[in-house]
C-alpha cells in the first residue's frame, strides 16, 4: 500500500476518533511579540505573528534577530522564545491521557525558556538530539545550528535523554548533547552566565574541524528516526488490517448472537485495536517529523556553513568529500523520508 495514503488514512482515523474540541483547543496564546516573529500554520503558510493569536499543535514560531515571542500556555505556564529561534508545537501519543496524546515542543534552533506552573499537564521538549522530561519549573533549552543541544535548569528537576543515555539535572546544572558524541556530563551552569553565542561558536568550530564527520553523525541520527517512522507506519498498517477484520467479526456477532454479545466483543477487542491504531499513527508521525525537522533546520544549517566556507575553493577535497556525502543524505531523504511525509509538510 502507498505509504502516503496509509499515513493519510491514519490521520483521517485520528480526526474521526478525537473530538473536534480537543483538536481545535489552542495550546497557547501569544502574550508578547517583539521584532520580527513569524507564525507558520500547518501547510507552510507564514504570516507575521500578533499578540493574542492562538498557537496550536502543528504550528511553528520563528523569531529573527533582536526579536522575541512569549507564549502563554493554557496551564498558565510561559514559554519565552529568544532571538534567532525556531520553536514547533507538536503532539505525541500518551495512553494515560484522556485524548491519548500530549503536547511535544521542539526547540529546533536558538533558545527557548520554560516557566512551568502545572507539571502534570506539561509537554515534553525535544531537540534534534534530546528529549527533556519535565520535573522542573524553570529551565532553558538551546539548540545550535549543528543540532547540538544544551539544557540549563534554574529551578526544579529536568531529565534529559539522548539515545540510551540520561541525565537528571537540578537547579544550577546544565548538560550538552553534542552531535556525534552524545550526552555529556552535567556541569555547573549559573543563571545569566550562559551565552548562546559561545555555544553557537563551539558548534561552528566542530563543523569546521571535520564537516563530513558531523554530517555522517547527523545522517545516522536521521536514519534512526526514519527507521522508527517506517516501523510504526508498518505496525499501523498491520493493526489497521486487524481493525477491519475484527470490525467484520463484530458485525457478524451483532447479527448472529445479538446486541449484548456484539457490544462485548466491540468493547473487548475492537476498541483496544482502534486505540492502538491512534497511538501508532501519532508515534509514527512523531518520528517522521523528527527526521523531517532535522532535515529542514540542522542539515540546512550545516550545508549553508560548509558550502559558503568552500565557495571559493570548490575543488578542495574537504568540500568534495562533504558534497559527495551530502548527496547520499539527499538520496536517503528523497527515497525514504519524503514518501512518509504529507504533501502539506513540504
Amino acid at each position, binding site marked *: 500500500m502507498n505509504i502516503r495514503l496509509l499515513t493519510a488514512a491514519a490521520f483521517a482515523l485520528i480526526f474521526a476518533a478525537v473530538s473536534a474540541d480537543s483538536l481545535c483547543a489552542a495550546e497557547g496564546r501569544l502574550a508578547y511579540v517583539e521584532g520580527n516573529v*513569524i507564525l507558520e500554520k500547518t501547510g*507552510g503558510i*507564514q504570516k507575521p505573528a500578533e499578540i493574542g493569536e492562538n498557537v496550536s499543535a502543528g504550528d511553528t514560531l520563528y523569531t529573527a534577530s533582536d526579536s522575541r515571542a512569549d507564549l502563554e500556555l493554557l496551564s498558565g505556564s510561559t514559554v519565552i522564545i529568544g532571538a534567532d529561534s525556531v520553536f514547533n508545537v507538536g503532539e505525541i501519543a500518551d495512553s494515560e491521557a484522556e485524548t491519548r496524546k500530549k503536547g511535544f515542543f521542539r526547540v529546533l534552533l536558538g533558545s527557548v525558556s520554560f516557566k512551568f506552573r502545572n507539571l502534570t499537564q506539561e509537554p515534553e521538549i525535544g531537540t534534534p538530539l534530546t528529549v527533556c522530561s519535565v520535573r522542573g519549573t524553570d529551565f532553558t533549552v538551546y539548540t545550535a545550528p549543528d543540532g547540538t543541544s544544551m539544557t540549563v535548569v534554574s529551578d526544579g528537576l529536568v531529565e534529559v535523554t539522548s539515545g540510551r543515555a540520561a541525565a537528571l539535572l537540578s537547579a544550577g546544572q546544565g548538560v550538552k548533547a553534542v552531535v556525534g558524541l552524545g550526552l555529556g556530563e552535567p556541569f555547573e551552569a549559573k543563571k545569566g552566565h550562559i551565552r548562546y553565542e559561545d555555544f553557537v561558536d563551539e558548534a561552528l568550530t566542530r563543523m569546521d574541524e571535520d564537516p563530513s564527520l558531523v554530517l555522517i553523525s547527523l545522517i545516522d541520527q536521521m536514519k534512526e528516526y526514519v527507521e522508527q517512522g517506517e516501523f510504526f507506519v508498518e505496525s499501523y498498517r498491520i493493526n489497521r488490517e486487524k481493525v477491519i477484520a475484527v470490525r467484520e467479526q463484530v458485525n457478524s456477532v451483532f447479527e448472529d448472537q445479538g446486541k449484548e454479545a456484539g457490544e462485548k466483543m466491540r468493547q473487548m477487542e475492537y476498541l483496544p485495536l482502534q486505540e492502538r491504531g491512534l497511538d501508532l499513527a501519532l508515534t509514527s508521525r512523531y518520528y517522521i517529523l523528527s527526521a523531517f525537522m532535522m532535515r529542514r533546520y540542522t*542539515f540546512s544549517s550545516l550545508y*549553508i556553513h560548509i*558550502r559558503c*566556507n568552500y565557495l*571559493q575553493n570548490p575543488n578542495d577535497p574537504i568540500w568534495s568529500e562533504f558534497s559527495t556525502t551530502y548527496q547520499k543524505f*539527499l538520496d536517503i531523504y528523497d527515497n525514504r523520508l*519524503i514518501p512518509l511525509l504529507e504533501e502539506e509538510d513540504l
Partner: protein
Amino acid sequence: MNEPFVGYNGDVKNAVFIVAVLLAATSCTSLSDAKIAEAAAGVSDDLNTGDVDALTGSSGTPFLFETEILPAPAQLRALWEALAASGYDFGPKGEITVLNPDKNTWERFSSSREVEVWFQKHAPADAALAVVPTDEGRIVLVVDRNKKSPTPIRGLKVEQE
C-alpha cells in the same frame, strides 16, 4: 441574422478593452526585466560589500538556497552572513539575463521533489529568474516581479564552472 455578428464585435471590443486594462494594471504592479536586473545587481553589490542588513531586508522566507529550503529568518540571515564572508566575487561580470521560470526550472536548483513543491507552493506567483555572471560562473536569483513585495529576493543558486 446579423445580430450575433454585431454581438461578437461588441465582445471583441470588450475583450480588447479588458486585456488593455489588465496589461496596464500588470505593467503598473509588475517589475520590468530592466528593474529585475537592477535588483539582481543590487544583491551582487550587497554581497560583495557585506551589507547583510540590506540583504536580509530584501529577502523573504521560505527561501530557496540551492538544494535547501530555509523557512526561518535566522537561517536566512546566517546564509547572507556566510555568503558575504565567503570572499567569493558575486559580480556582476557582464550583462544580467532575466528569464521567466517554466515548469522545469526547479531542476536547475535540485532534483528533489521538495524543490519542485517549493516552486509550486512558495515561489512568487509572478517570479523572474535573474542570471548574474561572475568570474567563476554565475548566480541565479529567484525574484518576485510584484512591485509591492517588500521582500522580492526569494531564492539563490551559485553555479560554478
